[in-house]
């Protein structure tokens, strides 16, 4: 509860603060301070100290899974602010508003991770999405940014409509006439038509939000068009929050009759894995490659939805940290590059050894090489999927796709270390020492989680 209230309040404070902040460099300190407060409050709530004890008519339910995810998301956002604070200032003039919008997104994230009623799910997803439409278009004078924003808004609004429709069907179809997901109790028998339609509509809408194929078409354009600092946020924390909502919804309300909708998820997972990975192979721009790679990683996260057991939940939390940290780190380096193509990375190992080294760790983690958090995350997902016991071929497909992903991630590593800098290209960029240390810190967390995944996973059973 504290994360929801505090991030909404802090968003408002940041919004009004825009009037009083004289210098563009001030808001980021306020934002970081606010985030630390919210993170502390959330951890306190996790350990049992409730600052706000509000009765929500059982529309919100704060269990370990949701609170733990909030901690993870807030921590990743903190890293994101620290790494990108100065780049957010460069996007445009309304600096404090950008931060305010991010806080509103966080409010949505916290709602989607702890909803217990379909209405709250809808609210959470909407609060999460609307500020993002604005952030995508925040580079006002850039045509690409405008286009991306409009595209995102139209598609997003459409999918929200579909979701609302699905919720309506579910409400009408269940015997109790309830919006609460733990009250659905749909049993294991054959589904009534209305419920079945509702489930399919919800799958479609949620797939859109987490950019699963075949509802992924907006992703590359939007991620590519949005200012890179905001792409970093959208592709990581927001996307992962979508997954948390997805699994929460499907496990609590439809978990008992998984066998009836599992095939649908299997198809979506397989398509996402294949399309994401195969398309990423052909990208020349690292930013676009990362956009497709986020689709590919979504495919792996969908395995949790396919498996739907305890290991899957542990894995999803681990995956959130591993994937978010690695991507945030990579995007933070990318923002500072002059040239976004893979050739632009040529010889970075010589000119900026620290950046190249940390980028290598991030890429190895995304590939899933042992000793990095990414490996453990993938391992948990595979374990969960095999525990489920059905559709063995999906697991094989997943590992083959992981191997394909090595191809495009390693292209960047090869460029950085094994190729000479191309002529005329310069790696002159602004790399202050704190930024370097922060990158090293992020990489260290990834390595630490590669050795001890229990540090994250065990908190679920706190």
């Amino acid at each position, binding site marked *: 509860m504290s994360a929801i209230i505090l991030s909404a309040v802090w968003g408002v404070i940041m919004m009004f603060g825009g009037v009083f902040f004289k210098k563009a460099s001030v808001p980021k300190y306020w934002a970081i301070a606010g985030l630390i407060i919210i993170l502390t409050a959330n951890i306190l709530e996790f350990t049992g100290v409730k600052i706000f004890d509000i009765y929500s008519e059982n529309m919100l339910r704060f269990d370990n899974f949701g609170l733990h995810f909030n901690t993870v998301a807030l921590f990743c956002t903190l890293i994101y602010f620290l790494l990108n604070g100065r780049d957010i200032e460069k996007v445009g003039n309304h600096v404090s508003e950008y931060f305010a919008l991010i806080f509103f997104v966080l409010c949505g994230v916290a709602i989607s991770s702890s909803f217990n009623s379909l209405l709250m799910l809808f609210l959470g997803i909407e609060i999460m999405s609307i500020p993002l439409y604005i952030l995508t278009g925040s580079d006002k004078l850039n045509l690409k940014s405008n286009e991306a924003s409009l595209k995102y808004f139209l598609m997003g609004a459409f999918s929200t409509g579909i979701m609302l429709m699905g919720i309506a069907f579910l409400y009408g179809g269940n015997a109790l006439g309830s919006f609460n997901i733990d009250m659905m109790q749909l049993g294991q028998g054959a589904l009534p038509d209305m419920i079945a339609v509702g489930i399919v509509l919800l799958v479609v809408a949620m797939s859109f939000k987490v950019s699963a194929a075949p509802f992924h078409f907006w992703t590359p354009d939007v991620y590519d068009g949005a200012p890179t600092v905001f792409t970093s946020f959208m592709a990581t924390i927001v996307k992962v929050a979508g997954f948390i909502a997805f699994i929460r919804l499907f496990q609590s309300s439809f978990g008992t009759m998984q066998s009836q909708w599992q095939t649908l998820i299997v198809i979506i997972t397989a398509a996402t894995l294949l399309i994401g990975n195969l398309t990423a192979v052909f990208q020349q721009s690292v930013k676009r490659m990362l956009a497709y790679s986020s689709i590919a990683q979504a495919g792996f996260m969908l395995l949790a939805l396919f498996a739907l057991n305890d290991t899957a939940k542990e894995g999803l939390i681990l995956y959130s940290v591993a994937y978010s940290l690695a991507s945030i780190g990579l995007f933070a380096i990318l923002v500072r590059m002059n040239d976004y193509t893979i050739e632009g990375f040529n010889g970075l190992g010589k000119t900026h050894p620290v950046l190249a080294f940390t980028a290598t760790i991030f890429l190895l983690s995304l590939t899933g090489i042992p000793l990095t958090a990414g490996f453990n995350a993938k391992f948990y997902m*595979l374990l969960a999927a095999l525990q489920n016991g059905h559709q063995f071929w999906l697991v094989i497909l997943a590992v083959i796709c992981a191997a394909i992903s090595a191809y495009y991630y390693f292209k960047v590593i090869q460029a950085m*270390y094994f190729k000479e800098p191309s002529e005329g290209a310069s790696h002159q960029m602004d790399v202050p020492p704190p930024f370097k240390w922060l990158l090293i810190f992020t990489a260290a967390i990834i390595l630490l989680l590669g050795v001890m995944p229990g540090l994250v996973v065990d908190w679920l059973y706190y």
Partner: protein
Amino acid sequence: MLGKYITFPELLLWFPIITGLLAFFIKDQKKVKAWALFSSLITLVISVVSLCYTDNTKYFSYNYVSYIWLQYLGSSFAVGLDGMGHMLTFLTAVSFPIIFAATYKNDYKNPNAFFGLMLLSQAGLMGVFVAIDALIFYFFWELALIPVYFLCSRWGGERRIAATWKFFIYTFVSSLLMLVGIIYVYLQTGPTQFSDHSFSIAAFYKANISLSDQTWLFWLFFIAFAVKMPVFPFHTWQPDTYEQSPAPATMVLSGIMVKMGVFAVIRWVLPVFPEAVLKFDNIVIGLAVAGMIYASCIAMVQNDLKRLVAYSSIAHIGLMCAAIFTINSTGMHGVMIQMLNHGINIIALWIVVDIVEKHTGVRKLSELGGLALHTPLLAIFFVIIALANIALPLTNAFVGEFAMFSGLYEYNPWFAALAGISIILAAVYTLNMVQKIFYGQDNILTKVVSLVTKKQKIVLTLIVLFIFVLGVYPKPVFDLTKDTVTTILSRFDK
């Protein structure tokens, strides 16, 4: 202290990791070389000391240790040394000082990174040989690959990026598939105190896997290991990679990494899937023998020195692979001793090849000749090593190959006869190579003053001694690995 706070496998694992990480901070070419040599010598000392405590009935606590790791998944950080583990860690420990000393003169760009990665690859290899938990084993199996990948792609020849990339993809895909296999077997194991299943090797040996599952699991595991060995038809990465890698990395690859595959089949395939092994043994032996003849034929027509040695290595490994699947004591003992012998011999061969290439600047057989006139000492060394390569009696390789052949003969005389052809071919291409490099007319390229360094002389002399000593008295190695052979074969007593 030993056995209570620290054990041999841990020492062998942590020491190269720590010295390797420290090596990254020593920027000076000379200092980092000395550091790497020093570190590898200490590792060798540890390994030699551990060989005095191989009796696991008495010194179990020196050689086995297990720490809680992922408790609720049933995986622990468990390492241990049995006879085969002792032998292969010794091979790893002895190879690195040899490699460092023999290539001491070579200079590298970014020497700190080079030697750091070399030592890390040593640690990775040690990890594979000591792991007795499937997840830990997989960890090190992949980790051993990463430093070698960087070594080859950064300091290799002209086509290095493409060549090592092929190598990387082959091994990465196959090991990911093996990971699926590992998880599947894990789900069939029995419960432990804290978890429903367990990754420990003992649980894997006890796992109750149906024959139909075994058949496909066998291939998932075997292909991952066959790529590393490499066994025909998974060998195509190997000649390119050996050719393009820097000399020390090639020695690591062919001397030790290849043994990872052989080792892993013995440790993780034979005891876990015994029924599938008995079902597919003739297919695997058929592939291995076909690969031997095929590789020998290609080696005969090779003009490139490095590729020739690479193909000859495929032929030798093919024999080991075939002998494993004979599932009899003779063949298995042959494999054990040959793992050690082949490791040392092939490294020696690469050392000579590297010297020849460094001095003449070419490695085309057709452009070489008459080197014996100018460097007689090198020629003597090379002839002895070459004779060991074709397993002449009195050399170490003879003992192993003889045992493997008699094992194969016990299994099926026809396979033994076919494999025998490759021995004749080996003599043809090896002697041909010796003749073309060292004898005949010298030319402008080969008129060089002998520049074999003192370190290289010492190393090669020691290797030659080793070749003869083990050729005459192989008993210590047989004794060392007897426990492993007995354990493995006991899985097949029905």
